[in-house]
């Protein structure tokens, strides 16, 4: 055990850290700017100076930068030494010489690291009497605001944006004391992780532009721990509300899942909660009614009728479970296409019955070889792409460590590594943003990607089935990948459902299983389409197509559709027929969709911000999101609406459940694959010391005797939360909350998000009492039976193209597309072709291309890319208005449009 003496007190600092990390981990305050736990140290800001002594007899010592000094045994340092303190005070004064007098109009104020550090070092008056330097700002797109005058030149922004996230369009310009951080010209920041600049920047240069639209200080937000709803990764977020409107999403540190960062879809996709298209009142026969009339209408519609229920992959476990209980197990259908349903079951089979464990995103970061099969991660699971980007540094970092360069010593490590990258292989239909760090890429039709995967598995372990008719180049590539995966200590195979191909997922499983026989550290990560796709798949239920059959064959006559737009999961003709044949259609949803337009009864359910629930992410980690605020309208959770309906019809099971906890307990008991979800958070009766709840509001929360005074000067009783131990007020326990229930990060003297270090057991490690969430899927199997059934070689057909879906971070996901900021980044519908295919059909870019896929006719503008495989056409996935089509499927090319069909034109 090493001993570190800080101000003559002995501490155990742990190993492998620098002095700054060690001091912060021990709970001591050392000010810093340029150091960041994920970005490492560069020693640029000179703020973290401490004194180090040679030995116990050394009284003079010398000043060093604590972030650049490794901890050694029996080291003696002093944080409180007068000279060190004076040094730090001077440094912050220098940094502040040009800082504008802006705090009152700065969005960072109140959660500003620069404010905190200035106060911490004790600097208060400006002695510098000369003029302040100024800069012109740039327009950086709909997400991020730029105010360059506030910059203190710590370089964190470019280190995150370029070095960590692989962005190309943010850099440092100019020289000496005029260094400028921005783009080469004003324009939208291209990186999908640009929102993190608002948190990485220690001051207000980069701030959240969507928050600026309805600006609220951090202390005035009512916040609750939440889970991102916009992909299957389940990143932890903090959602903040003010005046009945959701105002911001910030990162909630999770040591295993999302670490310190979020993607822009997750951070800026919250606008759908406040959108114009929200359903705020119940509607019966297109007439707005009140709660009681809506319940009466539902009661009439379902009593004595044969009712079926359609669940949703974007609704919580609780909502799906209560619907299942209401309609009965035999009448509960997953509201996803049959192919997605099959893929979900396949994923669970692989993770549950196979021998290979699925690692968390943090573990992917430390993988030393990665194979990606079929997923354009940046667009389908953005934060996983960020993890993969870190994984290519693992092998080079080991080489650097061999030359005595610690991984936290960022500048030195990068200098040593230069362009060296660890093995990363990407096989996708089209280019991806990760290609720039990939060792080799392979672009082909989905079946070809699967064949490559099967071939790799075979070369790793000949027991896995082999592939016929591979070209020489493919054999060479497969062998190369197999060899590199075998050499790795911690290889990870990543695949998912975005190609909608079972073959690809099976191929990925074969590779992982083949590797597992040689290396037990192998991992497999499979991404899914939506936030609770995994939870829904774990819950059991019938296919959507059988719901259609049940209605068409008169086995049922009323349907309850919950938080689901069926037009996103089935062809329009099928859904139209389904909804027309149903005698009564009841829809619970929060946002206006084509499905709610056709419903007889529409019930306004709550979004994630107005609901409690549990989601299961692609890792099988069940995580709880908490209600942020009580909605003022009749809006409530879907499951609460269903409980109310259950009470109205005297349902034998639903009447027994009163709140969130009752449902969760029943859920954990009845669903064998969801055992343990009732232990994710302490029960609602849990109280902190002295029987106190955990407040959603900070102790500085303002305006509570005034915000509603315009309506009525007598203040209403604050709402009570029957479902959790959080309170809706500022009263309650002020210490550290249990890690599952941290509504906001704050510590005395640490107002900014950097205060998270006070909540971690060690800087950059787990939260104090363990990272939240329960993993439901651990591999049971020890030996795998390889998948057989390798697809045939893909051969382009004359007069046909194979249509595949291309995913977009903005637009492919349903809910975030409703957010005004995200909406500005959604691409126009297009069809992407290879130049050879385009030329064959006499098409140039932007020409209209007519084709049919199954019953649907399209007339779409053409885009041409040489990276698109020949014989394949790419269609954007999930854009609003674009008709659903199951891909991959053959599209038939037309010369003239058939007059009978409705043609989709963007």
């Amino acid at each position, binding site marked *: 055990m090493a001993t570190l003496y800080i101000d003559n007190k002995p501490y155990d600092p742990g190993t492998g850290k620098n002095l700054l990390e060690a001091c912060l981990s021990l709970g001591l305050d050392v000010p810093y700017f340029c150091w960041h736990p994920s970005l490492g140290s560069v020693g640029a800001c000179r703020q973290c100076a401490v004194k180090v002594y040679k030995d116990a007899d050394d009284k003079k010592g010398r000043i060093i930068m604590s972030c650049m000094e490794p901890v050694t045994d029996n080291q003696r340092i002093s944080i409180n030494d007068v000279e060190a303190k004076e040094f730090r005070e001077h440094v912050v004064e220098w940094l502040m010489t040009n800082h*504008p007098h802006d705090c009152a109009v700065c969005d960072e104020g*109140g959660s500003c690291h620069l404010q905190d550090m200035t106060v911490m070092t004790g600097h208060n008056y400006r002695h510098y009497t000369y003029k302040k330097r100024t*800069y012109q700002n740039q327009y950086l797109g709909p997400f991020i605001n730029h105010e360059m005058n506030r910059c203190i030149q710590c370089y964190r922004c470019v280190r995150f944006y370029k070095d960590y996230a692989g962005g190309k369009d943010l850099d440092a310009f100019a020289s000496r004391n*005029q260094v400028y951080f*921005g783009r080469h010209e004003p324009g939208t920041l291209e990186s999908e992780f640009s929102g993190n600049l608002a948190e990485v920047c220690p001051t207000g240069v980069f701030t959240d532009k969507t928050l600026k639209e309805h600006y609220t200080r951090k202390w005035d937000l009512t916040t609750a721990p939440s889970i991102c709803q916009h992909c299957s990764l389940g990143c932890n977020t903090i959602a903040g509300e003010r*005046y009945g409107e959701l105002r911001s999403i910030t990162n909630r540190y999770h040591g295993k899942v999302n670490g310190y960062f979020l993607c822009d879809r997750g951070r800026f996709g919250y606008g759908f909660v406040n959108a114009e298209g929200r359903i705020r009142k119940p509607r019966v026969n297109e007439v707005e009614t009140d709660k009681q009339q809506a319940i009466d209408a539902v009661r009439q519609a379902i009593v004595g009728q044969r009712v079926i229920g359609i669940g949703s992959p974007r609704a919580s476990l609780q909502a799906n479970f209560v619907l299942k209980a209401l309609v009965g197990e035999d009448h509960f259908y997953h509201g996803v296409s049959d192919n997605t349903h099959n893929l979900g079951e396949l994923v669970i089979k692989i993770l549950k019955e196979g021998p290979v464990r699925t690692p968390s995103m943090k573990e992917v970061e430390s993988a030393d070889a990665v194979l990606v099969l079929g997923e354009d991660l940046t667009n389908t699971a953005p934060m996983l792409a960020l993890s993969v980007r870190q994984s290519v540094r693992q092998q080079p970092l080991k080489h650097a460590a061999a030359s005595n360069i610690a991984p936290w010593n960022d500048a030195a490590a990068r200098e040593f590594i230069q362009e060296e990258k660890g093995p990363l292989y990407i096989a996708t239909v089209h280019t991806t943003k990760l290609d720039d760090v990939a060792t080799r890429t392979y672009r082909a039709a989905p079946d070809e990607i699967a064949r490559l995967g099967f071939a790799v598995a075979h070369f790793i372990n000949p027991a896995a089935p082999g592939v016929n008719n591979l070209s020489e180049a493919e054999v060479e590539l497969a062998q190369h990948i197999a060899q590199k995966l075998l050499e790795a200590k911690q290889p990870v195979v990543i695949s998912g459902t975005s190609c909608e191909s079972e073959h690809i997922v099976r191929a990925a499983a074969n590779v992982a299983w083949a590797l597992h026989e040689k290396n037990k550290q192998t991992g497999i990560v499979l991404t899914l389409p939506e936030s609770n796709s995994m939870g829904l798949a774990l819950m059991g239920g019938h296919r959507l197509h059988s719901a259609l059959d049940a209605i068409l064959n008169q086995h049922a006559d009323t349907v309850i559709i919950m938080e689901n737009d069926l037009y996103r999961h089935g062809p329009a003709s099928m859904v139209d027929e389904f909804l027309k044949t149903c005698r009564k259609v009841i829809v619970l949803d929060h946002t206006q969709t084509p499905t709610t337009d056709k419903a007889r009864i529409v019930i306004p359910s709550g979004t994630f911000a107005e609901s409690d629930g549990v989601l299961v992410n692609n890792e099988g980690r069940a995580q709880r999101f908490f209600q942020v605020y009580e909605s003022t309208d009749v809006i409530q959770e879907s499951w609460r609406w269903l409980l109310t309906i259950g009470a109205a019809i005297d349902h034998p099971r639903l009447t027994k459940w009163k709140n969130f906890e009752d449902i969760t307990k029943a859920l954990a008991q009845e669903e064998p694959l969801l055992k343990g979800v009732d232990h994710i958070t302490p029960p609602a009766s849990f109280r902190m010391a002295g029987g106190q709840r955990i407040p959603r509001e900070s102790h500085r929360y*303002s305006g509570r005797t*005034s915000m509603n005074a315009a309506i*009525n000067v007598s203040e209403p009783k604050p709402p009570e939360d029957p479902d959790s131990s959080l309170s809706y007020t500022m009263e309650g326990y002020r210490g550290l909350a249990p890690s599952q229930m941290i509504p906001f990060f704050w510590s005395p003297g640490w107002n900014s998000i950097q205060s998270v270090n006070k909540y971690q057991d060690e800087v950059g490690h787990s939260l104090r009492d363990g990272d939240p969430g329960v993993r439901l899927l651990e591999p049971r199997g020890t030996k795998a039976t390889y998948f057989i059934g390798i697809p045939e070689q893909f051969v382009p057909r004359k007069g046909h193209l194979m249509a595949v879906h291309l995913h977009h971070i903005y637009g492919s996901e349903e809910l975030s597309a409703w957010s005004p900021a995200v909406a500005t980044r959604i691409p126009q519908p297009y069809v992407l072709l290879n130049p050879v295919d385009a030329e064959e059909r006499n098409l140039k870019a932007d020409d209209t291309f007519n084709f049919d896929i199954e019953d649907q006719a399209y007339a779409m503008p053409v885009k041409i890319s040489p990276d698109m495989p020949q014989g394949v056409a790419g269609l954007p996935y999930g854009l609003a208005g674009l008709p659903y089509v199951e891909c991959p499927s053959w599209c038939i090319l037309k010369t003239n449009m058939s007059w009978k069909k409705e043609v989709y034109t963007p």
Partner: protein
Amino acid sequence: MFSILRSLWITCMHMFHKRETIQYPEEKIKLATRWRGRIVLTRDPDMGERCVGCYLCAAACPVDCISLQATEDENGRRYPEFFRINFSRCIFCGYCEEACPTYAIQLIPDFEMGEYNRQNLVYEKKDLLINGEGKYPGYNYYKVAGLAIGGKGKGEAENEEVPVDVKSLLP
């Protein structure tokens, strides 16, 4: 005996002293300018709203009787979209005035705010905003802040250099 007469004398002499009682409301009391009474929002010398919606007054308020929402005009100048003080809660402590970085919110020597209906004690921005600078004339926050607003570009505030030419590498 003497002391009784003396006391009577002193007491009677009070009849000729200057009266401490004033005939309120016919007669008004004179209050010091520092007196903490009704709260107003002032304007800067250019008659622009001084309040920039920084929320510091609301945070400082011990009874949480101030609520507001900041917004921005098309030139980036911040101002409160609404600004509400619930005077039925206000304790006239003056912390809001101390907290205000722009001298916008000020307590003035006026206490005549009685109402029969408590709801009338809720003051909105239109009730609070005056057409004057109040106790602190001459101060204009945007003249010292680095933020560009309409009529004041970067480098045009007091004590500012002209904006850096990013393309120049001259020493």
